[in-house]
């Protein structure tokens, strides 16, 4: 028997008639009024009104600090993310991350309610630590905060000290913490704060002999494929590297018929020894600002920020690493470069002169802009809800550095409803963004390449790297085939429906 689910069922005539009948009760607007307003939202006049908005965000592309904090905290061996505050937040973080990665995600809440609002959250913290330690046996409990704990001013340092003094958890249990108010910054800042908090706790008293290793901090990078890739590249270079925080197993663990609460992560001794590394290389800038500053100032360790998305960025990455370690870039890496460049040369006719709109986190945007311009594509609208003035300046500088950046404009602090106006008044060929950008595709017909976070509606994209030369090849494949899919869609039924391209 033919079974029809929602994707077909409601197109049936009986349901279409039901929907018509229901309007009697809905008090709907007349169809022509809806059409009139719909048309108006596509105009320059509407765009101006839309851009005057100062007090409300509509379809913003950013999340809050503690999401980034729990993400970061989960990348260490045996580490339990632990959030002081109301419990709904943690339920949301767990759902959000699971929807993207299709993986389980464990995190703890201290379930603060009205009484904690009045008396403070000390009791919640104490009982929370006791239960979490007994039930889930973590090696480390990484504490961050929701806005509730921040507004009432809970003192994490004092609370954790009390827990240890009272013997609720062992004295030597690692309990790093970070204040992560959701009304400051975004998830990338939360990542930064938590990373700094964790390094503070792990590195204290561990300064010793130089180990010659390199620390790699990926930043708020939701591509598990990138973690595998960076480790492969470091091995090829013969560089001993420690990834801090290595979330690749957390969010992409093999199915062995067993649920592992702590499926991997950076081993704690390795993470501790990071203080003795030769240097720390951050693969994102805007999610590691405070951490790299801390490493430099507090520990006098050299830090580099090298984001290897696109050819020139990856070139710089290898050149700098080679300079830093004295190790040459191996021939295999050069061959990989040659292959992706060959692919870009082959595909350039379909990307050259194409206009792009991009929305996402700052570092991904900068990398994608760079790659697109390397192929002769033009970034036109660059929307970064969580971008600050530093990002704006850097992005503008990047646009100015290429003849293909001349039509580009950067919109820091704007959202996807702003982008909707831009796509109507100044259309582009391709849109780059997360899953929620599909509503822009629905409204404006602009084809979407899903890059960034969250990606809920396509599977496994995060398992492939987008960094390094191999990552560039993956990105180029996605970009050019989206253009070609769109070309097919537009030429269906015409002579231009080519079979060879």
């Amino acid at each position, binding site marked *: 028997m033919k079974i029809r689910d929602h994707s077909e069922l409601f197109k049936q005539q009986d349901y279409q008639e039901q929907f018509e009948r229901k309007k009697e009760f809905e008090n*709907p607007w007349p169809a022509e009024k809806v059409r009139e307003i719909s048309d108006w939202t596509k105009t320059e006049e509407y765009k101006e009104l839309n851009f005057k908005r100062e007090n409300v965000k509509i379809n913003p592309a950013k999340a809050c600090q503690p999401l980034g904090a729990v993400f970061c905290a989960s990348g260490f061996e045996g580490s339990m993310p632990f959030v002081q505050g109301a419990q709904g937040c943690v339920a949301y973080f767990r759902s959000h991350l699971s929807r993207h990665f299709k*993986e389980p995600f464990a*995190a703890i809440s201290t379930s603060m*309610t009205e009484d904690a609002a009045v008396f403070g959250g000390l009791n919640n913290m104490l009982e929370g630590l006791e239960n979490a330690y007994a039930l889930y046996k973590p090696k480390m409990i990484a504490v961050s905060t929701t806005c509730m704990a921040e507004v009432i001013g809970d003192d994490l340092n004092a609370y954790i000290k009390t827990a240890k003094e009272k013997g609720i958890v062992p004295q030597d249990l690692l309990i790093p913490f970070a204040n992560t108010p959701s009304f400051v910054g975004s998830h990338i800042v939360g990542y930064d704060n938590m990373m700094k908090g964790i390094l503070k706790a792990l590195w204290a008293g561990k300064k010793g002999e130089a180990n010659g290793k390199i620390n790699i901090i990926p930043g708020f990078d939701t591509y598990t494929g990138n973690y595998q890739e960076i480790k492969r590249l470091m091995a090829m270079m013969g560089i001993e590297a420690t990834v801090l925080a290595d979330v690749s197993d957390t969010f992409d663990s093999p199915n062995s018929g067993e649920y592992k609460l702590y499926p991997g992560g950076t081993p704690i001794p390795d993470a501790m020894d990071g203080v003795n590394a030769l240097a720390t290389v951050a693969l994102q800038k805007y999610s590691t600002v405070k951490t790299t500053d801390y490493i430099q100032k507090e520990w006098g360790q050299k830090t580099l920020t090298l984001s290897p998305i696109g050819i020139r960025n990856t070139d710089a990455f290898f050149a700098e690493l080679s300079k830093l370690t004295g190790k040459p870039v191996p021939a295999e890496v050069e061959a990989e470069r040659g292959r992706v460049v060959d692919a870009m040369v082959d595909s350039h006719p379909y990307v050259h002169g194409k206009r792009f709109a991009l929305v996402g986190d700052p570092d991904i945007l900068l990398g994608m802009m760079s790659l697109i311009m390397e192929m002769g594509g033009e970034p036109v609208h660059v929307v970064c809800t969580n971008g600050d003035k530093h990002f704006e300046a850097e992005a503008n500088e990047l646009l100015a550095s290429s003849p293909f950046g001349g039509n580009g404009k950067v919109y820091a602090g704007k959202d996807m409803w702003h982008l909707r106006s831009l796509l109507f008044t100044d259309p582009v060929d391709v849109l780059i963004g997360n899953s929620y950008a599909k*509503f822009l595709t629905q*409204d404006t017909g602009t084809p979407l390449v899903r890059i960034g976070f969250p990606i809920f509606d396509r599977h496994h994209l995060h398992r492939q790297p987008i960094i390094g030369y191999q990552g560039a090849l993956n990105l180029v494949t996605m970009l050019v085939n989206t253009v070609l899919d769109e070309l097919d869609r537009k030429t269906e039924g015409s002579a231009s429906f080519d079979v060879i391209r």
Partner: protein
Amino acid sequence: MSTTIKDTQKMIEEILDAYPEKSKKERAKHLAANDPTGQCTTCQVKSNVKSRPGVMTVRGCAYAGAKGVVWGPVKDQITISHGPIGCGQYSWWSRRNYYNGQTGIDAFGTMHITTDFQEKNIVYGGDKGLDLAIKELRGLFPLGRGIGILSECPVGLIGDDIEAVSKRVAKEINIPIVPVRCEGFRGVSQSLGHHIANDTIKDYVLGKGTLEKTTPYDVNLIGDYNIGGDAWASRKILEEMGLRVIAQYTGDSTINELGIASKAKLNLIHCYRSMNYICRTMEENYGIPWMEFNFFGPTKTFDSIRKIAGKFDEKIQKNAEAVIAKYTPLMEKVVAQFRPKLDGKKVMLYVGGLRPRHTIGAYEDLGMEVVASGYEFGHSDDYKRTYPDMKEGAVIMDDATLYEMEEFTRRLKPDMVGSGIKEKYTYHKLGVPFRQMHSWDYSGPYHGFDGFPVFARDMDMTVNSPTWGLIRRQRA
């Protein structure tokens, strides 16, 4: 006390042994062996109390209940997540409350609208910004029929007066503005959020809609959020019975529908937990009786159709029998196709709202047995309605933790588990067939005669997927 009950109680005690003393004592009250007769006093679980800190509860918050469940689906209301950025982001179109309408023009369901609090809002308050935000939204979305302000934690903590802002601005812009005090720290779960949201429907919208004529057959479909089109499938049955559904609460609903509900003759409630409050209000204030029903699976659906028809005249009762006769062959065909593949399979459920009890019959229609069931945010009246539907000695769990669920799974060895997104991938790793029973795993509808074939198909693909057999189990 029977041996099945004793065995289950022993298992529960073993599981509880891992807890520290205080939490052990507390959690013991929330786990029980089922006694369908209700005689066994130690078999009643405690519910609707605070979750213990640190245990990894699955529960959400009042905001999730008020915005995510009740107000979010009202399609022509502009719903503002008032406070910092996260809450609206994480609840953005995650419940699949389907609707018809043009998004951003005359409907707003798939949008995430927030005042995005910054530090200055915490220090100086958010009321002024809220006032301006409402006006900006009014300018951009002139066809919005109402505005909802769904408070996040800081709003209540810093002492903002969103009620005053609402009152003042509503006068200027002439559409209902509904302030909803659903800060996440209020109450112990989503549940209080449902209640708060129900109360605001009563206070700001109910009784204010336009309906030209009424008939003796006017009913409201309450507590159906149209997940994957559920409410549409249920409405189809009610309409075929000759009833006139004047309002859906709140799947695919409009402000006007919420308003005219007070003119119905009967309230039909599916999710009792989240909407019994508005039914009681309408009973007290408008004399409208209400009844619970269950449109999952043919047995319960036939039964419910007859009970609903019993509230009306012979014409409706005749129609009801005709509807049952019409769909019986189709339902038999579904059962004939899927029951052989599912017969005797054991199910463990841990969900919210109505599903821990309402889906039992549908599983039984397919020959499956629910061996454990529990609610994230149920109250004692939910559990009282559940005990008789489950076998003696089955596990009843309230506000279960990740640890407990894993342990029950290990010991009960269910053939499939139905729970939420946070549990889904844990079970995938365990190699235990799993179906999300909040979002229908992006499938649906599951309600009514059009929903049951989809339900049966989905449970079959869950239990019988060949992918489970590919897992190579590592021996410890």
